[in-house]
Structure formats: structure tokens, C-alpha cells
């Protein structure tokens, strides 16, 4: 053999050798727990990654569609035709749209309608869906309504009692309804714009003669095309646009939803992080065991000529192979699991999800690498320093491993991973701090529980005594197992039991006569009639509040466009129109925080009262002037008070309240909320019959829907935590593996001393049932504690401890841990003692 062959053939040889020994170790079952743990960590992370990525992309696509274009300019005044010319020059598609509210009349009745007049080409994104008759099968429209035609929304057709083919009058024009308009991409969401829409041809508008000075009209231009050209047009528009013109792109439209999705993604990813941490613990335990079992093999390899660097490279290569394999396997599993999440939430999503993006698989690789490098490597690498002398002297201690260093590496790996998820240093510190606090707390609680077992040892039978003694003897491992399982159970209990308890507590907390109906869109002239109808039917007239649509246009004399606002929430607030009311008396569910309420008889210069949080976000203090634009009319009000608003009171609540005065003259509708007893429902039917223009919202139905949403969402989160329970199982298996040789030897000795197999097995069952019960207890304790904190501090509710929680926690823990632990240990106990003792 040539000298230096070792180094020459090093890489290929290492790889071959690494692969071969890995295969053999795998075959011998030495790696099962380690591989399963990393696969589980990867699956849990990628399932969430794939799923949230799909939802995120669907929502962004939806946002573009909700504009019916890639970019839109809107204004209350006519928009320059020059913009269309510029868009055309850039090669973009462009159409015009013109919207206004108007009364639609027919022989059988009249109703307020939102008329949307469009030019050919509309919509640029998404489709119009139409049908030939009410509730008929809808199809995609190939164009827009022709001259003299109208496409009416189903609610308009129903309210007016007309059919396709009938005529309606808008202004001075007669239009024939030729289609029922089932869907248009930019249809308004939210119940305040529930006036039904009519789609007409833009060229029919002049003949209608409805648009006069002061009319509430919206002019729009819609553009679509490539990103570069859109960007150029945006720059052009930013320079050219007038004060009234607002430019919105798909990213503006989706900003809020995107933020919500990002938040959900972070939350779910952090949830799966719990799984990753438990899986990492199982990995570390399995790696430690692997390392201890391979000391002799490594010493032998050194005897045969293997150098330290060869051993090291072999270990590194093996770990690399493990990382790749587990990443692929885990990602595939995660890919499958995300379909389950999508299926659970499918009812909540009104849109189809795009196919999963395989790029999310990168997360799988980084998860596998983090767990492998952070938790397995520190235990494996010291193997390389095994002295070859070990083959002659078995009593040589294993290579020393600095515990501090191992934890440090693990913590660093974990921190890096969390940072890659949250990308926010402050949040990172909170999470790492929180995790560490949680670890310390749960470890302390787990230790206390394990220690408390010693008390029972005196009063139980031999099997239980043996089992409980085992738990106490392997104190640290026992605590780790109790904590690992307890955490998984805690989250499941929190979502499964405590969530319901909190919802019920909230509902019980509401007064019996809390409003269950909202009425909006009440025209001023209808108010007296409706009030007397309610008085007759319900025996009381609820308070009606005027509702004005308007938006903050300047703050302290500075136009909002130029005013710096750091809070995204506040930025969104000033960008859109909001609901404003005026009232002489402070509404019930409000409380003055600063300044002074104007008093019931005030009618002087306009004063403004703002929700305290929003005022703070806008940097406002008492006395500051705030400009408000209502229907194109601009006026300035002085901020004279800020309010705390009890948003969950089920009363109409407002960010902005104006003092009575000139606002009385502005266009407004009324809204109210009230309680309707089941036997009074008939009144609501009568009301709708007589006043078809009002919109009634059944809060109970809304609450039920909301509850459905919460149920589904928690089910999805619970699904994510099923991985956590599995990770707990792996921690248990890893712990059992570590003690397997010891257990075999012990039960052989016990057999030899005359213990029956049944008694030994009962002892094992007792041990794991007790461990599981402790874990369940810890889970129930944690879930109750968190439930209590949430109820007291966040929701301001009285929390009742639920006995079901404890019962469920104890039983689930005892069963899961009892069965898995016993199954995993049974084989070791069943081996013939002669065989065990001879090989010892």
C-alpha cells in the first residue's frame, strides 16, 4: 500500500464508509428515534410553511382581483383623460368606471341602487359572472352591458320584484335588465355598502341626467399590465394627480390581509417550533445514546488505523446524509399534512388555494440542519477523541463533553432558527426569553410533581412501588418526559377545553338583553316610522345614531398625506373612509379618558371626540385641530376629548364622534342596535316588509358564524399540535431507549430473584401510567393557569376552573404515555434472564 493512501483516498472513502455504516446502523435500529425526531420536526415546520404560503399567495391574488385591476385611480371629481393616454402609451390596458347611488324605479317598486357604469374591457382582473334568471346557473360574462341594458344584482331584482327582461328607470333613462349580475370582482364587502348594484354601460350615463353638483359620485380609472410599466405609470400619477385623486395598487389593497396572514404564519410557525424543540430534545437524547453505544466501535476503528479526522469526517458526512434524508422525508410528510390543514379550513376560505410552492421545502432543510447541527452534533463529535486504549481498558471514561457548551450550541441553533422565522430582534428576545422562562417554570413544576410521587410509595403494592421507584431514580429523565408530554397536552387542552370555557364565560357575561340586532341604512325620513314600529313591537325605542361617512383629511393643519404616522393601523385609518356619528350625549359603552364631553345642549363650533388609542397613534392631544372630509366637504373640528370604547359591548361604537351642529345638515343615515326576544321576531319581518331599504343584521347569526370560524381555526392549530404530542412520544421513546439495557439487566436480576414476569410488567405499566398522569397534571395546570391569566387580564372575565380539564388531562396522559411506554419497554422485560446475564 502506498504511503499517504489515507489522505489521498480520503473523501470518497469517507463518504463510502459513512454511507455503509449509516445503513448498517439504520438496519440495527440504532438511528430510528433520531431519524424520526428530525423527520417530525421538519414535517411540522414544512406543513405550516407550505400551508401559510399557499393561503398568503391566494389572498394576494384575491386582492388584485378585488380591484378588478392591478392599479386604480379614484376621485370624487372627473379624472383627466390624459392619464388614460399615458397608460395607453406605456402599453397598459385601461378602462373607466363611474359610480353613483341612485334610486332605481320600476312598475313594482323602487330601491336605492349603486350604479356602476363601465367602459368596454372592464374588469381587467377577475371575471363578471351573470345568469339569465334569478338564482339561475351563472356563467362568465364575455363583455359588459350593451347600450340601454342593465345587469342587476340578485338583491335588487328580488327587492324590486322584477324579472330579467323588465325595465327599470334610473334618472331619466329607461334600461332593460338583461342579466342578473351574480359577481363582480370589485364588489364592495362590508354591510354598510349593501345597497344593491346595477352595472350599466358608461355611454348611457349622460342621458340619465342624475349627476349634479354635490352628488356622491366616484370616478375611477383601472389599469393592468406588466409591473415595470405599472411602476412608471404610478410615478407619472404621483406627480400628476390632484388632491382628490387616490392611487391604489394590489399591494395596498392586500396590505391589511397580508399583515394578518403574516401574523397567522408567525403564530403557526412558532406553534410548530414547540414541536421542533421537543423533537430536538429527543434528537439530543438519541444522539447521546448513539454516541455512548459507539465508543467501542470508534476505539476499534482507531485500532484498525482510522485517524481522528477520518472519524470526524465520517460523523459529519453521516450527519449530512441524515440531514438530507430527514429533510426530504419530513418535507414530503409536511406536504401531505398541509393538505389536512387546507381541508380543515376549506370551508372558511372562499377562494381556491394555489398549488404549494416547493420553495417552502427550503424550510425543511434548514430545520433538519438546525436540529442535526444544534442537537445531535455536539453529542456525536466528541466520539472522535475516544482513546483507542478503550479496547484494552473498558473502564476508561467516555470523552468528556462540556454540558455548558452543548446547551450553548443548542440555544444558539434554536435562536438562529427563531430569528429566521420572526426576523425581528425585539420579538426574538421576547420569544427566547419566554421559552427559557417556560422551560424553567415547567421543569420546576415537573420536578415538584416527580418528587411528590415518593409520598405514595409507602402505601401501594409491590408493582407500583417498583414503578414509582423507577421514576424517582431516573429523576432528571422523568422530569424531561413529564415536561415534554405536559407541554403538548397543555396546548391541546388550552385549545380544546379552555377556549370553549372562555367563550361560554363571555356569553354568560353579556347581559340577557344585550343587543342581538343591528339596523343600518335607516334613511332620516324613515326614522319616525321605524321608531314607532319598534315601540309597538318591542315596547321601547332604541337610541338611533346618525351615521356619516367621512375621512380624516388633515391633522394639526397638516394634510394627512404629508403627516408622519408610524402606526400602520393608524395609517390605514386615515386612508379610508370611516363611520362618524354625532351625538349630544356620550354613548353608554364609552368613557372619557382625557378632555371634556361637550354637554347635551352644545351646538357651537364643531368639536371632535376620538377613541383614545387612535388619538395616541395619530399623535393628537386635546385642543388639536383635525380636518375632516365628508362627501367632498371639508371642515375642521377641535379635539376636545378622547374616549375609552368598550368594543365588545355589541353597541354601535365609533372612533370619531362629532358635536351636534352643522353636521346635522350633511347627508346621513341612522343606525341602532337592540334586543329582540324570540317571540318578538315577527316585528322584524314586518319592519323589513315595510322598510325594505334598511339592512338588518342578526348578531346571533354573526356570532354563530364567528364561533364557527374560531372552531375551525383552533382545529387547525390543534392539528399542528398533534405533531407536538408525537414529539412527546419520541422524547419518551428516546428516554426508554437510553434505559433499555439497564432495564433488561434489572428485570433479568428480578426474574432471577424470583419475581414473576407479570409483576415486573405491572411495575413498568405503573411507571408509565404515573409518568403520563403527571404529564397530564402538568398540562392541565398550565392550561388552567393560562386560561385564568387570559380571562382575568385580557378578556376581563371571571374564570371558572373546569374539572373536565383535569380529568381529560390525567386520562389522556396516562393512556398515551402508559401504552407507548409499556409497548416500548415490554421487549426488554420479556428477554430470558439467562441470555441477558450471559451477555452482560
Amino acid at each position, binding site marked *: 500500500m502506498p504511503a499517504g493512501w489515507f489522505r489521498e483516498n480520503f473523501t470518497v472513502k469517507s463518504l463510502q464508509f459513512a454511507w455503509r455504516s449509516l445503513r448498517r446502523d439504520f438496519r440495527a435500529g440504532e438511528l430510528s428515534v433520531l431519524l424520526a425526531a428530525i423527520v417530525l420536526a421538519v414535517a411540522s415546520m414544512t406543513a405550516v410553511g407550505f400551508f401559510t404560503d399557499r393561503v398568503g399567495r391566494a389572498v394576494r391574488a384575491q386582492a388584485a382581483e378585488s380591484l378588478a385591476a392591478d392599479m386604480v385611480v379614484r376621485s370624487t371629481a372627473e379624472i383627466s383623460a390624459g392619464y388614460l393616454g399615458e397608460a395607453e402609451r406605456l402599453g397598459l390596458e385601461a378602462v373607466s368606471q363611474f359610480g353613483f347611488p341612485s334610486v332605481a324605479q320600476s312598475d313594482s317598486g323602487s330601491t336605492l341602487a349603486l350604479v356602476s357604469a363601465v367602459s368596454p374591457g372592464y374588469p381587467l382582473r377577475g371575471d363578471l359572472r351573470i345568469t339569465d334568471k334569478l338564482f339561475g346557473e351563472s356563467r362568465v360574462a364575455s363583455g359588459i352591458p350593451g347600450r340601454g341594458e342593465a345587469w342587476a344584482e340578485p338583491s335588487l331584482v328580488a327587492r324590486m320584484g322584477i324579472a330579467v327582461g323588465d325595465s327599470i328607470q334610473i334618472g331619466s333613462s329607461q334600461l332593460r335588465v338583461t342579466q342578473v349580475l351574480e359577481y363582480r370582482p370589485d364588489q364592495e364587502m362590508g354591510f354598510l355598502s349593501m345597497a344593491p348594484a346595477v352595472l350599466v354601460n358608461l355611454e348611457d350615463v349622460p342621458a340619465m341626467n342624475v349627476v349634479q353638483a354635490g352628488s356622491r359620485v366616484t370616478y375611477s380609472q383601472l389599469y393592468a399590465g406588466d409591473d415595470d410599466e405599472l411602476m412608471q405609470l404610478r410615478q407619472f400619477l404621483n406627480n400628476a394627480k390632484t388632491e382628490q385623486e387616490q392611487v391604489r395598487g394590489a399591494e395596498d389593497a392586500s396590505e391589511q390581509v397580508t399583515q394578518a396572514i403574516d401574523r397567522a404564519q408567525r403564530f403557526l410557525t412558532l406553534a410548530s417550533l414547540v414541536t421542533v424543540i421537543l423533537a430536538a430534545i429527543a434528537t439530543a437524547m438519541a444522539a447521546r445514546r448513539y454516541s455512548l453505544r459507539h465508543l467501542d466501535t470508534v476505539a476499534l476503528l482507531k485500532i484498525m488505523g482510522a485517524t*481522528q479526522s*477520518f472519524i470526524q469526517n465520517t460523523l459529519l458526512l453521516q450527519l449530512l446524509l441524515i440531514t438530507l434524508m430527514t429533510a426530504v422525508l419530513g418535507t414530503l410528510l409536511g406536504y401531505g399534512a398541509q393538505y389536512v390543514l387546507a381541508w380543515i379550513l376549506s370551508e372558511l376560505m372562499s377562494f381556491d388555494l394555489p398549488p404549494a410552492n416547493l420553495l417552502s421545502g427550503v424550510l425543511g432543510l434548514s430545520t433538519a440542519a438546525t436540529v442535526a447541527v444544534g442537537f445531535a452534533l455536539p453529542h456525536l463529535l466528541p466520539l472522535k477523541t475516544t482513546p483507542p486504549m478503550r479496547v484494552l481498558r473498558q473502564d476508561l471514561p467516555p470523552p468528556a463533553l462540556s454540558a455548558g457548551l452543548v446547551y450553548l450550541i443548542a440555544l444558539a441553533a434554536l435562536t438562529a432558527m427563531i430569528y429566521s422565522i420572526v426576523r425581528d430582534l425585539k420579538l426574538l428576545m421576547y420569544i427566547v426569553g419566554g421559552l427559557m422562562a417556560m422551560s424553567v417554570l415547567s421543569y420546576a413544576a415537573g420536578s415538584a410533581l416527580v418528587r411528590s410521587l415518593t409520598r405514595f410509595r409507602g402505601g401501594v403494592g409491590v408493582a407500583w412501588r417498583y414503578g414509582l421507584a423507577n421514576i424517582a431514580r431516573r429523576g432528571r429523565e422523568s422530569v424531561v418526559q413529564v415536561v415534554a408530554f405536559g407541554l403538548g397536552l397543555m396546548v391541546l387542552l388550552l385549545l380544546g377545553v379552555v377556549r370553549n370555557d372562555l367563550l361560554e364565560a363571555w356569553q354568560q357575561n353579556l347581559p340577557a338583553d344585550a343587543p342581538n340586532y343591528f339596523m343600518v341604512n335607516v334613511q332620516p325620513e324613515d326614522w319616525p316610522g321605524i321608531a314607532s314600529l319598534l315601540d309597538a313591537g318591542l315596547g321601547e325605542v332604541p337610541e338611533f345614531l346618525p351615521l356619516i361617512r367621512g375621512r380624516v383629511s388633515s391633522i394639526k393643519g397638516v394634510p394627512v398625506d404629508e403627516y408622519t404616522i408610524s402606526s400602520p393601523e393608524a395609517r390605514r385609518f386615515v386612508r379610508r373612509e370611516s363611520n362618524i356619528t354625532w351625538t349630544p350625549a356620550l354613548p353608554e359603552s364609552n368613557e372619557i379618558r382625557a378632555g371634556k364631553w361637550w354637554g347635551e345642549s352644545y351646538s357651537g363650533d364643531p368639536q371632535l371626540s376620538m377613541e383614545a388609542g387612535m388619538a395616541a397613534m395619530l399623535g393628537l392631544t386635546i385642543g388639536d385641530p383635525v380636518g375632516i372630509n365628508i362627501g367632498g366637504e371639508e371642515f375642521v373640528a377641535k379635539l376636545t376629548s378622547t374616549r375609552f370604547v368598550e368594543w365588545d359591548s355589541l353597541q354601535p361604537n365609533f372612533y370619531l364622534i362629532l358635536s351636534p351642529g352643522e353636521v346635522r345638515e350633511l347627508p346621513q343615515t341612522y343606525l341602532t342596535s337592540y334586543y329582540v326576544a324570540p317571540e318578538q321576531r315577527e316585528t322584524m319581518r314586518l319592519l323589513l316588509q315595510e322598510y325594505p331599504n334598511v339592512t338588518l343584521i342578526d348578531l346571533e347569526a354573526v356570532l354563530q358564524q364567528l364561533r364557527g370560524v374560531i372552531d375551525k381555526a383552533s382545529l387547525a392549530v390543534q392539528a399542528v399540535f398533534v405533531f407536538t404530542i408525537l414529539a412527546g412520544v419520541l422524547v419518551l421513546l428516546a428516554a426508554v431507549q437510553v434505559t433499555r439495557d439497564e432495564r433488561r439487566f434489572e428485570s433479568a436480576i428480578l426474574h432471577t430473584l424470583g419475581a414473576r414476569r407479570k409483576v415486573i410488567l405491572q411495575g413498568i405499566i405503573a411507571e408509565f401510567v404515573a409518568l403520563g398522569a403527571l404529564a397530564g397534571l402538568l398540562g392541565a395546570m398550565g392550561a388552567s393557569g393560562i386560561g385564568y391569566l387570559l380571562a382575568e387580564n385580557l378578556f376581563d372575565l371571571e374564570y371558572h376552573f373546569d374539572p373536565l380539564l383535569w380529568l381529560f388531562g390525567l386520562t389522556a396522559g396516562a393512556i398515551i404515555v402508559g401504552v407507548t411506554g409499556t409497548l416500548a419497554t415490554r421487549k426488554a422485560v420479556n428477554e430470558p434472564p439467562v441470555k441477558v446475564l450471559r451477555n452482560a
Partner: protein
Amino acid sequence: MQVSSPEGSLTILENVTFVVSEGEIVALVGPSGAGKTTLLALLAGLDRPSTGDVELCGHSLAGLTEDGRAILRGQHVGFVFQSFHLVSSLTALENVMLPLELTDTPDARANATEALVSVGLGSRTGHYPKQLSGGEKQRVAIARAFVTSPKVLFADEPTGNLDAASGDKVIDLLFEMNRKSGTTLVLVTHDKELAARCDRVLTMDAGRLVS
């Protein structure tokens, strides 16, 4: 020679000087604690003396790093142990293939099979150590030691864990292999009969070579 230990500098071996010729069979005997195993470890480069040197196959071990000594062992040295040291997760064949795989020798499987046949275990290649008797395990270990055709073979109490009959078989095998391949044999043993069959006997007591 002195060896330092965690408890301070302990004189375990002193004034030990001897030469083993190529192809020679040497027995190291002496009471427990005499320093036989320590001497064996030094000879094989598993440990380093505080002073003095060992020359193995023409190489001074004192001038070599741990890795250098490992490489030298890989090239020239075979080992047989009292407790066999077979890897439990590997079959008999895989155990014998192990040193060949380490040196990336071609036809590892064929060579290893041949080695197992030559120790009379041709029919047990697929068996795991736990399925073999003590004597069989030691024969697998011998096949593993000889499969790389080492120049020197160190054996630490090779019959220590075996009954008399199996022990005799193992020793016969070792001697036969030595005859066939001319391998130098250094045996540590308590067995006087075995020692008597060797070319030379080195007796140790309290860290010194007494004869």
C-alpha cells in the same frame, strides 16, 4: 519507561528493552498488574510513554502523532482481544470487512469471505455476534485481524474468555496463520501452556522485564 496518569506520574514500566524479530512468536507473561497490557498498548502505539521509544516496523512511534500511529497500525498491525470486540450491529462478514473498508481495499467482500472460510466459519458469514458462541466470535476476530495481512499481530489474552477446548482451537488457528503469512505474533497471556508453545517468553513483574 514511565507513564503519566491522571493521579500523577506513575512508574508503570521501567527499563524495558527488547527486540522482537520478524515472524517471531513472543509471549508476554506475568502476574496481574505487572504491566503486560500497558506494554502491549505502548508497543501498538495506543498510548505514549513519557520517556523512551518504541520502533514498530521500522518507524519510531515517539516521532508520530496519534493519527500517524493510527495510520501505521492500519498498515501493519492486527489485533485480537480477550473480549473479542466485534461490532454487535454487524454480521460476521461485515465485521471482517470493516478494516478492508477502512483502507478502501477492493474486493473487500470476497477477501473477507475467504478469511472467514479459512477460520472455518464459511457457513456463518451472515450471523450476528450474538448468534455466535465465544469460540466462534474469537475466530471471527482472528479472521478480521488477518484479513489485512498485517506484519505484526498483538493478542491480549485471546483465550481468556474461552473454555479450554475453544481456547486450544483459537490458539492453533493463530499459530497456523502465523506460519502461513509469516506474521509476527505478540501474545499477552496467563496461560503457561500457551506461553510454552511460543518461540520466546518475556516475563514481567512490577513493571520490569524479569526474564
